[in-house]
């Protein structure tokens, strides 16, 4: 179903609601559905940078399931290193 078809379906129940408001409701519904079902899974790829340990995660990422480094799965560190490095 396209966004246009969804807008028309909702407008059938709420003819006075502005399109922008219906779009907000649709976005809330889509976020709620994805958060609860964890239905969308994908792979993000990025290169490391020498001497840089922190990399920003995309806003759309809910959970990191596993990480490959050079193609090999690496373990999640339990806790964090004693020496904090923010670089």
């Amino acid at each position, binding site marked *: *179903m*396209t*966004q*246009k078809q*969804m807008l028309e*379906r*909702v407008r059938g*129940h*709420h003819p006075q*609601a502005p399109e*922008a408001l*219906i*779009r907000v*409701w*649709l*976005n809330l*519904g*889509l*976020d*709620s*559905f*994805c*958060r*609860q*079902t964890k*239905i*969308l*899974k*994908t*792979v993000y790829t*990025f*290169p*490391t*940078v*020498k*001497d840089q*340990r*922190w990399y*920003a*995660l*995309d806003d*759309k*990422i*809910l*959970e*990191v*399931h596993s*990480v*490959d*480094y*050079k193609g*090999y*799965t*690496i*373990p*999640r*560190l339990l806790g*964090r290193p*004693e*020496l904090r490095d923010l670089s």
Partner: protein
Amino acid sequence: MSEKSEAQKHRYWVERDSIAIVKKSDSPSANKTYDSPLSVETVNLLVVKLDEDFVDTGSVITTGITCDVPAAGEQFTFTASGGHSFLDGMDVTLSGWIDDVGETAVADLNGITSQVENVAGNGFKLEGVNQNDGATILASTGDATPTNLTGIGITESPAIPSEFHEAIVDYAIMKGYEMKPEGLPSAQYFKTNFREQVSEGKKFSTKNRRGTTSTIIPQDF
């Protein structure tokens, strides 16, 4: 040391909306200390994600916009007599601008990308788009196209499986009914529909290619 064992010296953790990639120190005396990656390598993240947002791309290319002729250094005011869907903070690119003499391209405006501000009715301004000193632009008409709209367009569908698209519609209908007290029973009906589809979505999400669901069987010890 093999490439595999070298790679598997690395660890990761997630904190503050970021991911840290570190390598266990090679120094024998440096137990439990970690270094930042020492080389450029590829990292793959297997993640659960949200879908893109629905965005308005249906009526966004606004044509027939006019602009006034401000004094040198003053900001242009643009007017879309047929209305526009721009919001403050949206990036737009100007194109197709000609002056009122006709045929002459208004080079100073064409190709400019700037942020919309001061939206008021059919009018709006663009941040930093001012009349240049000594290069007076005559009253002009042209088009503006948003450049930063990424997401699910008006003719596109969400990435979630199509059998669950109805759930999104049910949620939006529910939100509409929640706004008025007399609509609360209807809201409850659509909320129940949404929850049922979320339940089905959870099952779908954990299904593997054999069509069975992953379950954890409790064991007595």
